[in-house]
């Protein structure tokens, strides 16, 4: 449905242009749902926003424990924003453990809402508190709002036929109702969602709606709550918008690519955090001709996709870092057999199992080099959740035109983060062209297009093109097995040149800020928001700082070397221990300065600003405060 934006400004409220709020509770407390619902309401309300879900890898860590805390941060604004905010202005803590793990991030003087009913001796002990922080004065730097949410909520549900557990479980709706009131948002978006979600369970629906309204009413009637805030809608470009996460945009991009090419999409994947949602989404798109396969392992997933590519369809596999490692052999077969294949890598913190639910950008060099032999593939990376849609289309556009594997490097931050997104019009997106072997143009499956060097895509069912391909080296002329020294040399160079020619598809790198100057911030992937914001802030302070963001990592945009040469210094902020900086230094002989955070968390704007000041000599050495 489409809602017209109104501005329900009330005189009793303080107007702010940006608020960052974090919901934190036990992983069983439904904080992700609370955050998502607040986000939806806020998006429909018309703010620009960005979100950062942060949840533990354990589905249910021990209740009340520190490792079991799940958080969801959201920043919303009347202006254009790029990040979910560095530090929250408001924190909702549903238990002592949530308070303990999140309080350090709350800005001094920030609003702190706690469910005081949960601050009992048992929970305090589990969180490692020796005294009750609600009583010992340690929370005095904050505006503390202590509400016995558990008790009030239970009272609101009194007459319902619900067990104590179910009653307790709906207290996140109570908190949501309260926070909606605090930030002057209507409840109807949540009510509609709940009515749809719980339509088959009327008792739970009624419980959640009552909890929501009770929390809202508490804000309105209780004299405890003195303040209320308003963040007016943002002045964004006209158009029709929706709220979208990176994984949703990725899945939509792939099904749209299939539509644009007029070829069925085949997706094979093995469940892995944080990529599984793409499998879930695509599995529900069967009516668009999408076939999905939950493979027995990562290797099978890439191989099944290669089978579909050989069969002449749009072949896709998705994974995260550990899975990309397992897929490298299969990926190399696609390199050798010159088949179009798209591999989605939703990166997470490594090495090995690492921190599955935490973000990182540390698969760049694995994607670039992690295969036996000289084995170039195309690398692209979306920069925002919404950009995942466009890069998914880009991945197939390149793969089909050049008969080459393309790795799309998303990450946990993009995948689970979300933003308002202007809905594109299908007819305005350029169609994707592919070409099966055309008997009028080629005589066999290894004849190349002189422009792209792509071989002919001869697919089973095409009479006259019966041929054999495989992982063995092939003759440049015929595609038959060939071990001759000169041929292998030529074929290796040809595979590299074919990837290099993809540069024709890559738009020139655009710079935000001065076109030449003291410092260029060069980033890639999910750090776009933080880097762009840091550049804006530095310029607002009069510094000569520009930023540029790479969406194509192999090949790089043709003008990258020239762009780098226009700045005295190049700073490369990355969520890894220095990977893009290695590529840039080796390819352009530029003394790029790596700036690396490997904490499983995105950059804060202030961190990049601190490093900028260090590099410009404005301040001393920057150090992270984790």
């Amino acid at each position: 449905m489409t809602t017209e934006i109104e501005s329900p400004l009330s005189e009793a409220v303080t107007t702010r242009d940006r608020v960052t709020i974090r919901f934190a509770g036990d992983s069983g407390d439904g904080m992700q749902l609370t955050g998502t619902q607040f986000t939806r309401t806020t998006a429909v309300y018309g703010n620009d926003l960005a979100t950062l879900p942060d949840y533990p890898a354990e589905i249910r860590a021990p209740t009340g424990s520190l490792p079991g805390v799940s958080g969801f941060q959201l920043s919303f604004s009347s202006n254009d924003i790029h990040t979910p905010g560095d530090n929250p202005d408001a924190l909702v803590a549903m238990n002592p453990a949530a308070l303990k793990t999140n309080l350090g991030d709350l800005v001094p003087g920030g609003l702190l809402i706690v469910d005081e009913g949960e601050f009992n001796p048992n929970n305090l002990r589990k969180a490692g508190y020796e005294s009750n922080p609600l009583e010992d004065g340690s929370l005095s730097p904050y505006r503390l709002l202590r509400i016995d949410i558990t008790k009030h909520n239970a009272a609101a549900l009194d007459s319902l036929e619900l067990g104590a557990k179910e009653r307790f479980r709906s207290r996140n709706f109570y908190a949501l109702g309260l926070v909606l009131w605090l930030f002057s948002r209507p409840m109807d978006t949540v009510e509609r969602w709940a009515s749809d979600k719980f339509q088959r369970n009327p008792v739970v629906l009624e419980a959640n709606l009552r909890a929501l309204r009770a929390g809202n009413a508490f804000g309105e009637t209780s004299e405890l709550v003195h303040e209320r805030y308003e963040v007016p809608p943002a002045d964004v470009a006209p158009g029709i918008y929706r709220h979208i996460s990176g994984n949703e945009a990725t899945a939509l991009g792939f099904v749209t690519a299939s539509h644009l090419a007029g070829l069925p999409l085949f997706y094979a994947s093995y469940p892995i955090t944080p990529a599984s949602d793409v499998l879930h989404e695509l599995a529900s798109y069967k009516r668009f001709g999408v076939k999905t396969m939950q493979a027995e392992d990562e290797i099978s997933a890439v191989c099944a996709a290669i089978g579909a590519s050989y069969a002449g369809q749009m072949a896709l596999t998705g994974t995260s870092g550990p899975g990309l490692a397992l897929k490298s052999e299969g990926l190399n077969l696609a390199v050798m057999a010159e088949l179009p294949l798209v591999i989605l890598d939703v990166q997470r913190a490594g090495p090995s199992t690492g921190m599955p639910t935490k973000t990182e950008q540390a698969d760049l060099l694995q994607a670039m080099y992690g295969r036996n032999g000289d084995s170039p593939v195309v690398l692209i990376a979306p920069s925002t959740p919404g950009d995942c849609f466009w890069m998914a289309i880009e991945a197939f556009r390149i793969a089909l035109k050049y008969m080459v594997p393309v790795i799309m490097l998303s990450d946990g931050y993009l995948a689970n983060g979300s933003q308002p997104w202007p809905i594109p019009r299908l007819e305005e997106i350029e169609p994707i062209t592919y070409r099966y072997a055309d008997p009028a143009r080629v005589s066999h499956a290894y004849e190349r297009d002189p422009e792209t060097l792509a071989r002919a895509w001869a697919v089973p069912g095409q009479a006259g093109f019966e041929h054999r391909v495989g992982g063995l080296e092939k003759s440049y002329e015929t595609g038959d097995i060939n071990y001759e020294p000169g041929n292998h040399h030529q074929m290796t160079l040809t595979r590299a040149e074919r990837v290099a020619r993809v540069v024709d598809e890559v738009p020139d790198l655009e710079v935000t800020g001065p076109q030449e100057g003291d410092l260029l911030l060069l980033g890639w992937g999910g750090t776009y928001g933080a880097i762009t914001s840091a550049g804006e802030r530095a310029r607002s302070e009069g510094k000569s700082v520009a930023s540029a963001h790479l969406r194509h990592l192999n090949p790089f945009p043709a003008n990258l070397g020239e762009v780098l040469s226009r700045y005295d210094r190049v700073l490369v902020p990355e969520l890894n221990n220095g990977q893009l900086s290695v590529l840039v230094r080796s390819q352009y002989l530029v003394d790029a300065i790596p700036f690396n955070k490997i904490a499983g968390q995105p950059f804060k704007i202030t961190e990049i600003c601190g490093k900028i000041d260090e590099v410009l000599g404005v301040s001393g050495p920057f150090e992270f405060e984790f």
Partner: protein
Amino acid sequence: MTAAGSNGAIEEEIPLLTRKDFVSDQEVRWCPGCGDYSILAQMQKTLPGLRIPRENIVFVSGIGCSSRFPYYVNTYGFHTIHGRAPAIATGLKTARPELTVFVVTGDGDGLSIGGNHLMHLLRRNVDVTVVLFNNRIYGLTKGQYSPTSPIGKVTKSAPLGTTEVPIDPIKLALASGATFVARSVDRDTRHLEETLGLAAQHRGAAFVEVFQNCNIYNDGAFASFADKDVRQDRMVYLENGKPLRFGKHLEHGVRLNGFQPEVVENPLSDDDLLVHDTGRTDIALPMILSGMDYPEFPVPLGIFRQVERETYDGLVAEQVEVAKDRAEPDLEALIAGPETWSVL
């Protein structure tokens, strides 16, 4: 592209092909005397009988001597990576169910490095014919023991004999839920040709183990029971609905004593003998038969199991059709999502 029927057969214009049509222009490079030649020849003889155009047939293989097979068959062919042919074939067949797909593999490729994929292809009942060349040795890497080498087998990698119990391909296939499970031998060309043909015609995952002699690294591995002069006495041909009889004049038989098979020499009638039944849904009987080994028993050849079950590729395709019928595929609505707002 040629329009094909559901089982890959062309309804009109059935081409009349001969063995020669399936011989590729590539020089065959197996060792002279290798059992692989026989399997290739029987396959090339079988294929014309399927009445499927060459361009609708794909051979997928992994790595190893057996996996060179696709180069020599003039159809579409994909010589892939070690052990992964079943996974690639699953993707290929699921994407294009109208194609006829064969997987050619060996005991190392299919049961060691690729055991997991083979198991899952059979479990899913992908409509693919898997031919596993079992020579009980690694040939291409020059003579290490394989997962089907008998315990104690002396090889380069086991100079004092292997310490591993081998896996039985037939048992693995049965336990994985394969809907067609058969065994043949390279030296019985007539039986091999017929078995390959029946496997190819089966709708669902068909698994054929072929005892194949590697005359370089494991010569005579099957000679004690599969050589022409002893075969009739030491192997038993399984035939559906018929009692198990073997011997030059079919004078001997096999009966069941509880779960235990027993050889009966010169039984007076068939009355006590075990009657083969390929169509049972449970796998107890074929499992018992698969346990029969020389010298205690004649080694069974033929079809152990043949049952009908929905295929994976068929079910996936059906879900797509059902989903299309159930809801109009409106991509613009999908992209817009459940909730939108307009900024004026």
